[in-house]
């Protein structure tokens, strides 16, 4: 700053000489130096941020791939089991049925393994150690357009479908119970007076759970009402309804007309996870509903389909049962360099969610 002062020894006419350009250079150099220092600081900060970013870059260990594989296996195996069951093997052909399910699962495993392989993972579903749970597929071949009444082979409207169905482990004993009903066939009723309506009863001898399907007297919609186990008939409440000429009631999946119906949980406490007793499935007022239905019951243990009420051979007009795979369990394993996942999966599509 000394240069800014007028030099005592110099005379006034000396401006513009010698020192002026020097000072300009100094300012210029200082400006550049500052700019360089700032840029250097910026680069340092940038490197630090980038290093931190690289160090903390984490996309998980690939658990999404594992879950994707698992859901594909369960979904695919469930589809194969249901489709092989629907082929309707004859009574003595359970070995053939299980063999064909195994073949289907092996084909599925082969394709999923290849798919995982291309993602640098080793996936394996061990079909050799698959454990089958015996069941029976009970069905009535009606449709909404060509409905059949939900009566037994002997045309009884109150009848027993299956008895002593036993749960095992965390699995249930009834799955994929889906009925298509024609609205015009249903009884006109309400939740306060449902006794005339078609209903499905699940009972263990002391308590019973009822699901009524009827045409709501005031709105004309297909409605489902539920009476919980251990409650009096007056505790029946309507849980959902849908206005349509026909509707699909999924008793085990808990939906009506394709829409979730949270109050509809097949069997309530009678078939809930807290119970180990066997239960019976009964139909009441089967003449007050028409359409078609399918259900798969677990016949392992003491469970059985009621022989007198359900035909043992496929029939066009009557309910019948064919051997089926109720559930299948097999170990799966998924390995990458970062994660190893092994589990025994249980496949029983259409079971009630607990």
């Amino acid at each position, binding site marked *: 700053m000394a240069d800014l002062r007028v030099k005592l020894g110099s005379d006034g006419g000396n401006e513009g000489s010698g020192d002026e350009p020097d000072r300009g250079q100094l300012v210029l150099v200082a400006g550049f130096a500052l*700019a360089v220092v700032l840029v250097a600081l910026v680069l340092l900060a940038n490197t630090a941020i980038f290093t931190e970013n690289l160090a903390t870059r984490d996309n998980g260990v690939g658990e999404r791939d594992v879950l994707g594989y698992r859901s594909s296996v369960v979904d695919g195996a469930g589809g194969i089991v249901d489709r092989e069951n629907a082929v309707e093997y004859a009574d003595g052909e359970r070995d053939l049925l299980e063999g064909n399910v195994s073949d289907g699962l092996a084909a599925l495993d082969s394709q999923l393994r290849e*798919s995982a392989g291309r993602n640098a993972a080793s996936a394996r579903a061990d079909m050799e150690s698959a454990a089958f749970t015996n069941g029976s597929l009970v069905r009535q071949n009606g449709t909404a357009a060509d409905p059949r009444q939900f009566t037994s082979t002997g045309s009884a409207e109150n009848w027993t479908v299956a008895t002593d169905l036993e749960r095992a482990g965390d699995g249930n004993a009834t799955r994929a119970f889906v009925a298509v009903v024609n609205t015009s066939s249903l009884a006109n009723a309400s939740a306060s007076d449902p006794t005339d309506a078609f209903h499905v009863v699940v009972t263990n001898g002391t308590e019973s759970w009822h699901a009524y399907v009827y045409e709501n007297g005031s709105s004309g919609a297909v409605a489902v009402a539920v009476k919980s186990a251990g409650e009096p008939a007056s505790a029946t409440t309507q849980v959902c309804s849908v206005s349509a000429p026909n509707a699909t009631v999924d008793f085990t999946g808990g939906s009506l007309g394709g829409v979730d119906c949270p109050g509809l949980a097949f069997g309530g406490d009678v078939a809930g996870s807290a119970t180990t007793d066997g239960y019976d499935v009964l139909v009441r007022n089967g003449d007050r509903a028409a359409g078609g239905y399918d259900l798969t019951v677990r016949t392992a243990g003491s469970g059985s389909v009621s022989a007198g009420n359900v035909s043992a051979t496929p029939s066009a007009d009557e309910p019948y049962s064919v051997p089926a795979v109720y559930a299948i369990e097999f170990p799966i394993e998924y390995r990458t360099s970062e994660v190893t996942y092994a589990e025994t999966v249980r496949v029983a599509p259409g079971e009630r969610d607990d």
Partner: protein
Amino acid sequence: MRAQAHTLEGFAAAVILLSGVLFALQATAVTPLTASTSNQHIENQQAAVAEGTLAAAEANGTLRPALVYWNTSGERFRGSGSDGVYTAGGPPTAFGDTLNETFGQDRIAFNVEVSYRTSGGRGRTRMVYMGSPSDNAVAATRTVVLFDDDPVGDGTGNVSAAAADGAFYAGALDAEGPLFGVMEVRIIVWRI
């Protein structure tokens, strides 16, 4: 004269200094945390969203109908353009609506392709093509199992019948069982 020179000098120095600061600020603008099409956080986020969209579609059961939304006579996805792919957005199915809602409104482009095993190797069919992905694109994959009796979207029958006529994009491999094939759905997502 001297005062003027000092003023000019001052301005010149200020300009140089400010240029330095400006240059420095411009340089700071490109950090990995800066909002841009190549931001790492955006990539992570997009990867998670893509993964979640596929997982949700599979869980809701909307992924499979989108795969068989096929026109057997035109041999292309139903309602797609002349080259057989959707270019303006997702397919006109529930899965397509989800894609459009998730990505379309945020100016994120996506491609969807399906790959499957063929007798000689692997085939790949484009479902949605919005262009060539940028360097910062991320991908998510999900496998879907198709069965022989899955109905084709145009109501003409099921996939195995369509494949037997050569009118479906994938061919049936497992002639015996109910399994049609395992389709790998891949969505590629990037910011435009």
